[in-house]
């Protein structure tokens, strides 16, 4: 009984935190008439960049996944694991890395200059798409790779024994698979990119490259026009609902999986040129992912060694506090909600963007306190909400298995809820809890979303601090802070995940 009450109240709090801000936004918004001409452009840009990002991510992922599926080479396993890393990589760190490769003074332009070509500019639509592909190419690759590896090896052998030409083999084996997986992968990435704020903030901007989310931020921060921010939030909400419906229709059954490390039979992929092509794709993808990260590290070391500024350390402290508090809150929430209904509820909660939530919370808090003083608590709560679906995705199957295996024993023993939690649930779910905590901590650590709405100079988090240093052209300090952020994010993930594994009961 007590457990049920706990689950219901956890669900109610989550629902209130979702619906409350929406109601506040609706209440404050000026209605449809309040839209300005620029808003339509923002809407167009938002959709267009998401379409392009999804398209390029999936198209490029096809040859990469194909190469990874049918070739075996040293480092293949590591590369596949690394494809999971962008999920917990702070956006601002990736942006720093991409700028140092593709930016004004980046590697690429340095290379082009030797041939006397004109310089490329990373800001604008192509920069936004580039960053989105950086984050989502690995996701699409993993989704495709998983499906590829699920093709029974016998089919490939059959194809070989029939002597199918490469073209015939592609049409009978690989094309059906691509047609099955690619639309879902595209839909997932499209939806992710619709609500991506930090990328647009750092690489977009200007009337020609403003997303709706960015427009909300600008209305709040620059014009302090709350009614307009609320109207835009409504627009974003409508967009999210439509996108959600599209994604539900197209998304594959399991969109968030881990590729198994089993190469498809490698003996039938003879032709030398095919091997060269595969190697080129793998090398290009690896370089695209790893060179920017290597640049962050190599450029960050001097910045960090020279001594990061007072502001950076202060921001790092804030970020650690936020990350740890978000993790605790998220796990507390996840505990009673680790069931089907809870997972649906949590997904509904992130269907709206953090910026919309942030706007709503700002409107709710304003009559009572100075919202800016609430920057860190609000960021903590929103981050916990955003990580909750991932935490539940990890915990729910394990929790349900536990209930299936031992629920009856629990009942015949008449175990109390507290004893069950302390003696069985927590010890047996340590591994997935550690993994979920690691993800939550890393996501909260790297988040640059709602904090941008609320923060004043005294209450920056580390990602915001990096952004500010970049804005102030203190590139060395920014690189140092970005490296610190990278280390803290991955470090927190590693610590929690490892903590869950050590002495884990199996």
């Amino acid at each position: 009984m007590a457990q049920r009450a706990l689950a219901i109240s956890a669900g109610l709090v989550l629902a209130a935190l979702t619906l409350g801000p929406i109601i506040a936004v609706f209440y404050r918004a000026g209605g449809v008439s309040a839209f300005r001409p620029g808003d339509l452009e923002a809407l167009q840009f938002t959709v267009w960049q998401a379409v392009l990002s999804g398209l390029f991510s999936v198209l490029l992922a096809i040859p990469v996944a194909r190469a990874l599926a049918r070739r075996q080479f040293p480092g293949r396993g590591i590369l596949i694991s690394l494809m999971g890393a962008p999920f917990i990589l702070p956006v601002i760190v990736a942006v720093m890395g991409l700028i140092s490769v593709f930016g004004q003074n980046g590697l690429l332009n340095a290379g082009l200059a030797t041939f006397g070509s004109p310089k490329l500019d990373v800001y604008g639509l192509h920069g936004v798409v580039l960053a989105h592909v950086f984050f989502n190419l690995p996701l699409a690759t993993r989704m495709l790779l998983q499906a590829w590896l699920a093709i029974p090896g016998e089919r490939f052998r059959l194809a070989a024994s029939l002597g199918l030409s490469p073209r015939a083999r592609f049409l009978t084996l690989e094309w059906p698979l691509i047609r099955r997986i690619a639309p879902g992968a595209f839909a997932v990435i499209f939806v992710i990119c619709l609500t991506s704020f930090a990328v647009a903030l750092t690489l977009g901007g200007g009337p020609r490259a403003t997303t709706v989310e960015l427009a909300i931020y600008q209305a709040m921060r620059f014009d302090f026009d709350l009614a307009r921010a609320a109207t835009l939030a409504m627009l974003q909400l409508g967009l999210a609902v439509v996108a959600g419906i599209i994604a539900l229709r197209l998304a594959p059954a399991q969109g968030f999986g881990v590729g198994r490390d089993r190469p498809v039979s490698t003996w039938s992929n003879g032709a030398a040129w095919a091997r060269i092509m595969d190697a080129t794709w793998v090398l290009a993808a690896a370089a695209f992912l790893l060179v920017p990260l290597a640049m962050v590290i190599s450029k960050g070391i001097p910045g960090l060694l020279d001594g990061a500024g007072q502001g950076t350390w202060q921001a790092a402290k804030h970020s650690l506090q936020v990350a740890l508090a978000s993790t605790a809150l998220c796990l507390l929430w996840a505990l009673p909600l680790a069931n089907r209904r809870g997972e649906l509820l949590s997904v509904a909660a992130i269907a709206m963007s953090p910026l919309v939530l942030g706007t709503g919370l700002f409107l709710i808090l304003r009559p009572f306190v100075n919202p800016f003083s609430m920057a860190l608590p609000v960021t903590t709560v929103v981050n916990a909400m955003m990580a909750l679906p991932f935490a539940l995705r990890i915990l729910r199957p394990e929790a349900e298995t536990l209930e299936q295996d031992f629920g009856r024993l629990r009942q015949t023993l008449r175990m109390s809820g507290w004893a069950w939690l302390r003696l069985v649930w927590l010890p047996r779910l340590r591994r997935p809890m550690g993994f979920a905590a690691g993800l939550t901590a890393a996501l909260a650590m790297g988040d640059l979303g709602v904090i941008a709405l609320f923060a004043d100079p005294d209450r920056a988090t580390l990602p915001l601090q990096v952004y500010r240093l970049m804005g102030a052209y203190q590139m060395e300090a920014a690189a140092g802070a970005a490296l610190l952020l990278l280390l803290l994010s991955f470090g927190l993930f590693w610590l929690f995940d490892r903590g869950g594994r050590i002495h884990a009961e199996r």
Partner: protein
Amino acid sequence: MLSVENMVVPMDSSDLSGTLTLAPGRRVAVLGPSGAGKSTFLDALAGFRGLKVGQIRWSGEDLTSLPPDQRPVSILFQDSNLFPHLSIFRNLTLALRPGGRAASPQDRLRIEGALKRVGLEGMGDRKPGSLSGGQQSRAALARVMLQARPIILLDEPFSALGPALKAEMLALVKEVAGNVGALVIMVTHDPADASSFAEDVVLVAENKVHLPVATAAFFANPPEAYREYVGVAAEK
């Protein structure tokens, strides 16, 4: 007296029905073809499955709508009778202290006594995984012993053991149940188990829980439904 009145339990394909009474302290075997509903019957008694119609009473008290953890029943499952990450001692403490508190000195004595009775003296610190299958069954029996409830249900808990070990476990169950004076209801596939262990046999076949029959009489003159199920196999 355990009385089952006009019971109808929903199953996957059809319903299982039955009316019968079983006396305290008896040892009853539940026999029948697989899929006929032997485990469903046990689940209904334990409260893991609700009744569509009918009532289950124990010495006058209506159990029908009680949840499993409030029924005077302890049950041994086919597997997962012990938490694998807890020591045997901790597992047994839970039988006495379901709130999760540590064992009191008296509890300790009782647990050690139970371990001795099932031949696991000094193994309290071991985890279930480090014990053999037979030892795990013994530890689970010790749990049932400590629970000391008037009805003990056995859902083929020893089916993975060899014949000699199984006979040994059944003898132990007989002893434990005799001490507590408990009614034991055991699901089994094996007629030999039934004739060596049980005083009565309840046949579950054709969507029906039949009336209990004294074991000797049951095997001397098996009912039609049972002959069909065993007979076909025997002719082969």
